[in-house]
């Protein structure tokens, strides 16, 4: 009992410390590194709270993918600074303002945090209304993991919309391209200096990673895991292969690529509509079919998510295709 309390306290202190480092570190690289570490520790905290699904997502997306994107941004910034030394540099620092204002802002932030903390402590016991309902309704879906039940059956609309958000976020990233580069490939992820070690890793790790990703998706029906976690792992393997120079980033005008990106949402939507035709309403599953349909949806979603996340890391199209 006391040991776990100590462990929790330790986690808490590390979390707060990392958060403070993230907020106050001047070199952007340090801030990002601290942020990634924060994500990992946060995942541990989620495990301690028995929310393994959340922990997996936090580690994969909150720390891994986001951290990777941020590192990319830091590297880009460094390249820009080297290329155009005279241009004003982007710095992570508080803009010069009146010290009084800083004090007031700090006080209000502290106030909001304090009220939030107090309120969370005064919250009643975990509400039973929905937890109980989910437990009762879960057998109808044929699933064992209540989280997957909520995500793909009870609140399928949220998941559908979230999967769609990813697609449009990618369009948003692509939209930052130069007009001349449109339709072309993103900048290669391959490192400037060839590294044999990375090539070896790129050849050895992906089979394991893909296996793990598929397992996460498959296990999601009955145990922690699911399309988002599995997809992220697959994406990571793809990105690894890309940066080792073992694969080429596809061009954004590639139809197959676009189809891969949107197939998850499209299929989700199609099965939702099929439920309509099958007399159980939009996003409903006919009795007895739900587990099979959910697995099909999750499978395609995993694929789409993996491709989308990979392309998100690759970034906006950079070179036009030869005409």
């Amino acid at each position, binding site marked *: 009992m006391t040991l776990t309390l100590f462990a929790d306290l330790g986690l808490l202190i590390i979390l707060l410390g990392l958060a403070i480092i993230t907020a106050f570190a001047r070199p952007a690289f340090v801030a990002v590194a601290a942020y990634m570490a924060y994500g990992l520790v946060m995942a541990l905290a989620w495990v301690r709270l028995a929310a393994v699904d959340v922990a997996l997502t936090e580690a994969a997306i909150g720390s891994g993918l986001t951290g990777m994107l941020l590192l990319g941004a830091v590297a880009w910034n460094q390249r820009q600074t080297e290329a155009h030394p005279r241009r004003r540099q982007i710095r992570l620092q508080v803009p010069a303002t009146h010290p009084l204002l800083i004090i007031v802002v700090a006080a209000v932030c502290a106030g909001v945090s304090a009220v939030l903390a107090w309120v969370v402590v005064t919250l009643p016991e975990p509400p039973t209304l929905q937890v109980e309902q989910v437990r009762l309704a879960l057998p109808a879906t044929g699933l064992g993991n209540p989280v997957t039940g909520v995500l793909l059956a009870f609140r399928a609309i949220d998941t559908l919309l979230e999967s769609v958000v990813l697609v449009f976020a990618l369009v948003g990233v692509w939209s930052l391209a130069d007009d001349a580069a449109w339709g072309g490939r993103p900048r290669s992820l391959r490192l400037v200096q060839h590294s044999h070690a*990375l090539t070896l890793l790129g050849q050895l790790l992906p089979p394991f990673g893909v296996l793990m990703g598929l397992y996460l998706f498959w296990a999601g029906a009955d145990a922690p895991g699911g399309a988002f976690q599995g997809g992220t792992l697959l994406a990571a393997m793809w990105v690894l292969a890309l940066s080792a120079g073992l694969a080429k980033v596809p061009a954004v005008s590639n139809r197959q690529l676009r189809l891969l990106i949107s197939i998850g949402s499209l299929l989700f939507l199609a099965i939702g509509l099929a439920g309509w035709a099958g007399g159980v309403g939009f996003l409903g599953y006919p009795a007895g079919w739900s587990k099979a349909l959910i697995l099909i949806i999750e499978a395609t979603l995993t694929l789409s998510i993996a491709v989308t996340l990979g392309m998100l890391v690759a970034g906006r199209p950079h070179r036009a295709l030869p005409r």
Partner: protein
Amino acid sequence: MLFTDLYTYSLVGLGALFFCTGTIGLLRFPDSLSRLHALTKADNLGLGLVVIGLLPQTHWPLGAMKLIAVWLLAVLASTTVGQMVGEAIRRGVPFR
């Protein structure tokens, strides 16, 4: 039962000791290459000890294989990263 527990405690403790040494090295060594050395060497060994120490505590054979896979993958990853950081240091990228 007592014997296996004792075995686990001692090996995991030894592993933790390696982690500590590695961390001290990371903090105290003068240049980047030495720090990298401390980190990879000590951590790989430490993790290995922890895994070996935990083996009797888990199901045979699946659990044990998972633990060993974790160790192998970690070794693979940290080796690669160590290699790459080393190469970067040789190219003159400043690490502080």
